């Protein structure tokens, strides 16, 4: 198993290098001269030469790449000219938003998707099954932004003034206070734990639990329901279909029949024997869906007014804030790579054939 994990880690290294190269190249290709973007009206030949020398932009391109890699490895992602903030700070604030959103969407997708898939497989060809699969087909065909707008319309407009009303935008209601961990533990900007504290402050669910703030928890949960459903519906539908087809295949296998023949209850057969073996393809799909969630986060964050990674990246691209683009693309791709690595390792853990081949 250790050997397998090391193999996977080594295989990820060239991809990581490739990601660094792509983010570097993208920032060089993206709209706008960094000097003009940064200095604005003050940009002329003299100031630009000084600017380029300061940021190493007059070096040969290979050296620039080496400098960039060195910066990234030491945790320096540059400075956003638009906000005048270090990109690492923006990441620590906004990554929490996206992670919370993606995580909520995933919980929705996995719990609902797998339940529907199991029910469909158990009652194969029944009305429930047919209905669920028609629903799943619609689920994969609805764009995130259409579903988001639709949910906002139904729950914020049509159901307004009913107990089912849910807020259509923002992460918290006006006037909600959040306890900041940086203040709580008296951390200052230079402290190595400062960014970490900032990150956890913005994970409202974790924040509410640590501070035992019930009001904050309920309020942020209310704001999270619609975005999570909007973002999680496509993965939910895919997971439901995958669970169903995978489970149906396993239920037709000899060992399932053996399990039934030796008199095990239907529940035990389904949950202990069949579901375990049907999980492999479902886990792959869950891993792949996380990439989709990070993509879809751009749309969901736009619609529901969250200031997360996706939104920041979109703003960065439209305002040619190239340190932000570079930094955020890198972080997003890094997270995605990490998730895929975890899925790979999990896969090897669940299926001995894979790690031994």
């Amino acid at each position: 198993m250790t050997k397998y994990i090391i193999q996977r880690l080594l295989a990820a290294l060239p991809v990581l290098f490739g990601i660094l190269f792509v983010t570097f190249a993208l920032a060089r290709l993206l709209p706008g001269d960094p000097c003009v973007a940064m200095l604005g009206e003050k940009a002329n030949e003299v100031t630009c030469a000084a600017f380029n020398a300061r940021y190493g932009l007059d070096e040969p391109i290979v050296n620039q790449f080496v400098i960039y890699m060195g910066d990234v490895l030491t945790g320096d992602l540059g400075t956003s000219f638009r906000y005048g903030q270090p990109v690492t700070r923006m990441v620590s604030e906004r990554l929490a938003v996206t992670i919370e959103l993606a995580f909520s969407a995933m919980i929705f997708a996995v719990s609902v998707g797998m339940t529907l898939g199991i029910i469909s497989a158990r009652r194969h060809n029944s009305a429930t099954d047919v209905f669920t699969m028609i629903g799943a087909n619609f689920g994969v065909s609805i764009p995130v932004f259409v579903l988001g707008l639709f949910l906002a319309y139904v729950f914020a407009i049509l159901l307004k003034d009913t107990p089912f009303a849910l807020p259509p935008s923002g992460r918290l209601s006006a006037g909600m206070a959040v306890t900041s961990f940086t203040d709580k533990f008296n951390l200052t900007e230079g402290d190595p734990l400062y960014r970490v504290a900032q990150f956890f402050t913005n994970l409202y669910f974790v924040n509410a639990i640590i501070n035992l703030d019930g009001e904050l928890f309920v309020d942020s949960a209310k704001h999270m329901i619609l975005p999570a459903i909007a973002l999680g519906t496509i993965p939910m539908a895919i997971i439901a279909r995958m669970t169903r087809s995978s489970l149906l295949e396993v239920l037709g296998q000899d060992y399932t029949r053996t399990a039934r023949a030796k008199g095990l209850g239907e529940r035990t057969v389904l949950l202990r024997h069949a579901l375990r073996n049907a999980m492999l393809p479902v886990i792959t799909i869950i891993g792949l869906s996380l990439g989709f969630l990070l993509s879809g986060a751009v749309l969901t964050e736009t619609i529901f007014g969250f200031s997360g990674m996706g939104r920041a990246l979109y703003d960065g691209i439209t305002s040619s804030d190239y340190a932000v683009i570079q930094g955020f693309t890198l972080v997003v791709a890094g997270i995605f790579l990490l998730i895929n690595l975890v899925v790979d390792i999990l896969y090897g853990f669940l299926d001995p054939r894979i790690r031994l081949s």
Partner: protein
Amino acid sequence: MTTQESPISPVKPAAIDFSPRRKSRGFWSEALRDLFTRRRSGQVGLIIVLSMIAVALLAPTLATHPPNMVLIGKEEGVKRRQSPCIYAVDNLPSLPVVDFFRCEPGQPEHYFGTDGNARDLYSRVLFGAQVSLKAGIYTVTLAILVGMVLGAVAGYVGSFTDNALMRILDVVLAFPSLILAIAINSALLTVAEDSIFSRGLGVMQRTLGFEDIGLLTALISIAIVSIPTYARLVRSQVLSLKEQEFVTAARSIGAKDNRILFRAILPNAMAPLIVAATLGIATAILDTAALSFLGLGAQPPTAEWGAMIGAERNQMFTPPHLIIFPALAIVVTVLGFNLLGDGLRDSLDPRMKNR
């Protein structure tokens, strides 16, 4: 096939009839037959896709107005964001669906109402079918052409070439697709302004009939992002097919590598590729709409469904028709391609026979 077989009875060896009981059909006609006769959802998908193609082709005839014409000052009583109005429903009984289309006194007839620029929404949605289908089909064609060559070369040549190509594609896959597409799209738009690429883009613009440069770069970037999927698919097919006996046979009669690859291997790898392409069109339409919704793909005044929703998304809460009709168009089209793709997959998979 199962019921027609006669019960087993002893036969004299001489009486065995070696002529095929029925004319054997080819793989493709067998698959199509299966799709037409047994795959209910595949048929629904096919009908939806064919009707959407018909709508796209007939858009100029079916449309009541030019899609980009601002009607203020050209038509009596027209307003911005006017709700749907069909004269024919006047005599129908009061139902929520019917009332939605009921006209106010003096309101000009617009089946789906008018948009924020007082353009006829019905005509725009119809012309949107042209835009989306074109975008979906071109994107997938482009991605498949490149992906097929890369995958075939990687799988057939193997060793270092295979490794190098696959690692490069891994890097593309390491980015969440829409985010990478957004970034590539912005890069392409700069490139489009001043460089040798701008001529290439200009040629593509003319040959593909795209006036909207934003839409063109959007579909190129979506195509680039989806290349690895097709390349991996073709590679895995080639890897398993090249060990088959008919390939050895072709080699033994002296066929050259490119003949073996293009005449023997690739035609046999077509079935899964066609399924992937059909499902890929659905994804491409969704992604194009998403980019346009964000304002990065189709630019005004192009009648693109995603862009139409994006332009009016803040008006959702007053006249919902501006969102409802383009949204329905996207969902139905994407659903059609998804159903057709699933049906084709079942029909083309020999293991799914009789299921």
